[in-house]
Structure formats: structure tokens, C-alpha cells
């Protein structure tokens, strides 16, 4: 239970084409993350799967069944919204119980499942509160509780953590991953945070302007990006790109080197490229150097936190020759 298949799905709002043509197969039990820049159509794609938007054309199959025209209530999916979208007039208990009531579950079943969900999500002591008396993290947990009680075919998350502070976000990220390992239910998770994408996903869909740029495991995307867009989007800090004659030396229109794939030296003449340190961002464990490379661009270099660099230091950079990504004029990897 829980496979999702999109076949030539298209979506336009009026004249504006948002999703030109997407075909995608999500396997049962998979944790798939949709990632991409703001406005690329991630939410729209998720809402098409949910049934909250109608497709312009194409087919959506859930467990092999054509659900393209089915209303959201009939699709058996659960969704967690960015705004939490809790029912403000109901207590936490009633919020979590709502899907079960809609499914006409018995009173005992409702009580049992609500108690269980509340225990799993550490909400037991808040069951009689209204959502407005909860913190952001607690609200998000209620939203998740409401989603899990009805045992859906799949969970849809639309940037569920973006309203939380950084520390809580890391916690909730782990909790959701944990939940997936427990339930083994298909999950689709939308985010524009590539760290969330890398850490949570079994497979990532990288979207750009409504197109799937690449669909693969996080390490696939990191190691073998299909094109320059994916190479630039996956990995933090971002990959350094070099165009022009320097790239031509590698028989490519442009080349890319990740910040972590350099060796850095301070003795003159001991590197491929020479540059001056601009800003050194010291995180303790790592240091990110922003180096103005002579004749090329500003590059970000990652080094361990042991060495210290100062503004204006001369440094000599050597890219790891096995980890230079080459792209043709259209941006495709070669």
C-alpha cells in the first residue's frame, strides 16, 4: 500500500503553465523529498497528488488505481501543512480525532488511537487544550498526530518545519524520520532546504520551473548530478562553477568543484589556482574560506577548523582531479 505514480501530469493556472509535464514513480514505503527553489511548483505538485488542485491533464495513480478525478477525502492520503492548519475551535483531542470521526470509527477505537498518537508524540498532557495555547512545535506535533491516526496510504508534508526555530527544526526532522522508520508508510516531503532533503530522503526529486531535473538517492545526486542546476542545488556550501577558457582546459563549457574537494596550501607555487582570502567564516569544526581566485571567480573552500586564515592571505588551491564536474553548453553533465 502506498505507491504513487504520476503520468504526464500537467498543470496550468489559467494561461500560466506551472507544471509542463511530469512523470514520476514513487514506491511503496519510500521517503521522497521534493526540493527546489521557491516558486518551482513543489507545493502545486503535492497538492495535485493530494487532490486539492485538479490536474490540467495526465493521470495520478495511487496503488495502481486511477485517482485523478477523486476528491481529496477519497484518496486516503494525509497532509501536514506549513501553517499546521489545526481546527482552532477544537481541543487537541478533537483535532486528532477528527479524521477518525469522519471515517465513522467507534468511540473506543477513537479513544485508543488518540491516546496512542498522543503518547507517541508527547502530547498526552495537552489533549484538552486548544491549539492557540500550544507552541509551534507542539502544534506541528498535533498536525502530525492528526495525520497518523487514520493510517493513510501516504503522508504529504508541505514545508512542515519552516515556521520553527533552527534547533526545533533539527529535532522535528529526526522525529519525522523516526516516524517513517516506525510506520514504513510512503511519505512525500516538500522543502526548499537541501539539508532536510539530504538527511531525510530515500530519494530526492529536484524540481526547477515545474520540471524534474533529477530523481535519485541523496548520494546519487551529490556524486552524479545530472546537470549544473542539480550540482548547484545539492551540497552546502554551494558548488563553485568556472566558465570560459579555464573550463575549456577540461574540455567542458563549464566545470564545478565542491568546496570540500580542494587541497589548500600557503607555500607559493604549490597549487593550480592562486587567490586571496576574502572572508573566513569560522564555524569551529570547519572553516569556509571565500577566496578571490586570480583570473577566475570568488570560490568557497571548506577546510578543517584547525588552520587559521586571515583576510588578504595568499592561498594556493588544488581541486581533487577525480571530483571535477564537467558540463556542456546546455548545462548537462558530461
Amino acid at each position, binding site marked *: 500500500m502506498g505507491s504513487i505514480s504520476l503520468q504526464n501530469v500537467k498543470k496550468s493556472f489559467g494561461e500560466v503553465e506551472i507544471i509542463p509535464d511530469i512523470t514520476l514513480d514513487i514506491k511503496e514505503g519510500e521517503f521522497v523529498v521534493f526540493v527546489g527553489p521557491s516558486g518551482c511548483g513543489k507545493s502545486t505538485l503535492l497538492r495535485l497528488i*493530494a487532490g*486539492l488542485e485538479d490536474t490540467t491533464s495526465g493521470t495520478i495513480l495511487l496503488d495502481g488505481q486511477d485517482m485523478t478525478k477523486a476528491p481529496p*477525502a477519497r484518496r486516503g492520503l494525509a*497532509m501536514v501543512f506549513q501553517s499546521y*492548519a489545526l481546527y482552532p475551535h477544537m481541543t487537541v483531542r478533537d483535532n486528532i480525532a477528527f479524521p477518525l470521526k469522519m471515517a465513522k470509527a467507534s468511540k473506543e477505537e477513537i479513544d485508543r488511537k488518540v491516546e496512542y498518537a498522543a503518547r507517541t508524540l508527547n502530547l498526552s498532557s495537552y489533549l484538552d487544550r486548544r491549539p492557540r495555547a500550544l507552541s509551534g512545535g507542539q502544534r506541528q506535533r498535533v498536525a502530525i498526530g492528526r495525520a497518523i491516526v487514520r493510517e493513510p496510504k501516504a503522508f504529504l508534508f508541505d514545508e512542515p518545519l519552516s515556521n520553527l526555530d533552527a534547533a526545533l527544526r533539527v529535532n522535528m526532522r529526526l522525529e519525522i524520520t523516526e516516524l517513517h522508520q516506525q510506520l514504513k508508510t510512503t511519505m512525500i516531503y516538500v522543502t526548499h532546504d537541501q539539508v532536510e532533503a539530504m538527511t531525510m530522503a530515500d530519494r530526492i526529486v529536484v524540481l526547477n520551473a515545474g520540471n524534474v531535473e533529477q530523481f535519485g538517492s541523496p548520494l546519487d545526486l551529490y556524486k552524479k548530478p545530472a546537470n549544473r542546476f542539480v550540482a548547484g542545488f545539492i551540497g552546502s556550501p554551494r558548488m563553485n562553477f568556472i566558465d570560459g577558457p579555464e573550463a575549456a582546459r577540461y574540455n567542458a563549457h563549464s566545470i564545478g568543484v565542491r568546496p570540500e574537494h580542494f587541497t589548500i596550501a600557503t607555500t607559493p607555487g604549490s597549487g593550480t589556482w592562486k587567490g586571496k582570502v576574502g572572508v573566513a567564516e569560522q564555524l569551529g569544526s570547519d572553516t569556509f574560506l571565500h577566496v578571490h581566485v586570480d583570473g577566475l571567480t570568488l570560490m568557497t573552500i571548506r577546510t578543517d577548523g584547525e588552520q587559521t586564515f586571515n583576510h588578504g592571505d595568499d592561498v594556493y588551491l588544488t581541486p581533487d582531479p577525480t571530483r571535477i564536474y564537467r558540463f556542456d553548453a546546455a548545462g548537462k553533465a558530461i
Partner: protein
Amino acid sequence: MARTVPTSTRIGFTALAWIIALILFSPILWVLLTAFKTEAEAIANTPTFFPQNFTLENFGAVQARSDYIKHATNSIIVSVGSTLIGLIIGIPAAWAMAFAPTKRTKDVLMWMLSTKMMPAVGVLIPIYLIFRDLRLLDTVHGLTIIMTLINLPIIIWMLYTYFKEIPVDILEASRMDGAELWNEIVHVLVPMAVPGIASTLLLNVILAWNEAFWTITLTSGRAGTLTAFISSFSSPQGLFLAKLSAASLLAIAPILLMGWFSQKQLVRGLTFGAVK
């Protein structure tokens, strides 16, 4: 920090507010006092302020001449009935316009409002003829129908503005939770819009209660409401100011009391959204 307003300004504004309130209230006060005067005192050349010979005879006379209870019952049925029917039609209509709008939704709203800009007398003849042919003249249900139609644009407009304030996410969440349209409206939309729906209800009961044009023209004896009841006292048999006042007082008292007790709700509903 609260803005500091000079005391003199504050006193000035308070006084002004009181003066305006008193001017607005003075006709009601006059009716209230006159209702307890004798007919002679009411039309005396040197008017008195307080009744000199306090009397309840006007109320007795009014009830004797024209059945107050019957008119009041009609008023209640027509105003509450038309408002409830209006809500039953208006809630789904406003739901559609607020949450599933089309390109034409704004036009439909404007068109509905425009019907309120037309003078009612403009459609008097057609409505009268329709009512005559359908045998709806001087019937309570006929009056309820016309009152529903008259106030429907206002009901839908008010509900629409309240519904617009409700985040659509929450309704979508209910759809994801398996709620069909009916459950979405009954279990999610309506409870969340209670303040708005309540003030729509109150306002429309008041409007329907006070409506005089159609209630007077479409009724005679049987289905007359309290507005028809009052107008029957400003009749050619001579001026009976005290009795007219007593009748008016009886007619406005229920709605005045309702307005008084629900003023918090009314104000909250009418400023809904403004202070979010």
C-alpha cells in the same frame, strides 16, 4: 506606549459623543414618555416632559383595537424565519464564493448588492401581481419568502466577508482528513465562523423586523407584522399620539431588548477581521 490625549480633548469628545447619542435617542425617549401620558396631555399645547398623570390605558386600548400578540407573532415568524432560511441558502453560497471563486464571482457579488440599490417601489407592481396570482398576499409564508429574498444579498455579503477571513488551509485540512463537503461546512466552517454568522443573524432579524414597505403593502389583516400594527394607528380617525406611541413602544421593545443584550456580539461581528 499608549498615546496620551490631553484631558480637555478627552472631555470634549466624550461630551460630543453623549450629545450625538442623546439626539439619536431622543425620538425613542419621546415615544417612551408619551406612551404613558393621557391622549390630552400628549397633544397639549405646552408639552410636558414627564407624564403628569401616569397611565397604562393606552396599552390596553391598543391591544383592544388591534391584536398585538398576533402581530408580534407574525413579526417573529417572518424575521426569524426569513433569516434562518437566508442563512441556509447563504452559507453554501458564501462558501462557494469565498473558497471556490471563479472569474465571475466578484461580478455576482456586485450584482447582488446592486439589487439593494434599486428602490423597492420599482418592483412593487410585478411582485404584487405575482403574489396575487400565487395567492401569497396577506400570508405569513409569503411575507417570509419576500423578506428572505430582500435580505439574501446582505446575508451573503456579510457571510462572504467573514468567510474570507478563514484560512483556506484549515478547510483543505478537513478535506484531507476525509470530510466531505457537508462535514466540512458543518464541522469546520460554521463553528469557526460563529461570531460572523451570529451577527449576520442578529442584523438580519433586526432588518426584517423593521422592514415596513413590503409588510405594509403585501398584508392587510391576517399576516400583518408589527410595522403594519404601528401604521394602523397613524390612521385617518384622528391623531392619537399617545396610542401611537404605545403601539410603537410595543413594536420596538422586543428588538430593542434583543439588540441591547446582543450588542457585544453585534459589535464583535461587525468589526470582525478589522482587529485580527
